[in-house]
């Protein structure tokens, strides 16, 4: 898929996802600093804790928008295939790791890492699929 002509939907996706990633880093910083410097309790604590999760939710909406806006049906099915292939290894990893943590007392993995792990596997899938559709 070495197309120099990236669709407008893809360009829009890139802009939106870069923005959301910046928002994510920013909110993570705000939340970490907030919890380090202030003794937060109750609702304020919960809201600040959720703050970094919001850009992640927005990022998923951005992906959904891209899939809906991409006019090229082959490109769309390519991304759909990659996103499906990403699910398997993610589920396998979390299940095996979770099993090891529970039974063999391996060190735990932070739950919010599931999303980046999934993204990594989707990226690997696109590399494999690009060779398949060469």
């Amino acid at each position: 898929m070495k197309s120099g002509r990236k669709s407008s939907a893809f360009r829009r996706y890139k802009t939106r996802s870069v923005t959301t990633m910046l928002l994510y880093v920013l909110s993570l910083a705000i939340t970490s600093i907030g919890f380090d410097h202030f003794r937060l309790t109750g609702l304020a604590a919960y809201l600040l804790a959720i703050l970094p999760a919001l850009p992640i939710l927005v990022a998923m909406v951005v992906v959904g928008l891209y899939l809906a806006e991409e006019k090229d049906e082959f490109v769309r099915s390519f991304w759909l295939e990659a996103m499906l292939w990403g699910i398997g290894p993610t589920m396998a990893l979390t299940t095996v790791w979770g099993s090891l943590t529970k039974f063999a007392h391996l060190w735990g993995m932070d739950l919010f890492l599931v999303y980046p792990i999934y993204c990594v596997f989707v990226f690997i899938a696109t590399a494999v699929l690009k060779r398949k559709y060469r």
Partner: protein
Amino acid sequence: MICSTNNPAIKRYNYRAAVVMTLYVVFLLLAVWVFKLHPPTGVAAYALAVLPSLPIVGMLVVAGLYLAEEKDEFIRNTQVQAMLGGIGGTLAVTSVWGFLENFVHVPHMDLYLVFPLFWVFVGVSMFVVKLRYR
């Protein structure tokens, strides 16, 4: 998944899923029992801890085989939509709960629950998709 019994791909899926789920229950009971009575150490502990997660990985293979074998393109399309809804919901919940765990110490969600959570969201998405194509 659809509960129709005419579709050979679904019949095959149901059979394989039943086999895999039975193995899961057996392996889980075995692991819990052995860890309680004769707790192993070293490599044996890790191997036994991983054992119940293997049928879970098998479940992924069963689901993948179904998607490949389903001849009805529309039904396959709706199942794919349901799986995307599944992963979307899962990533949203794990992200939000993960940050809450990290910052405000809500009760811990075990990592191996991510996969059952995924199936829950697949079920919910399947319901939504069916409404759409009523």
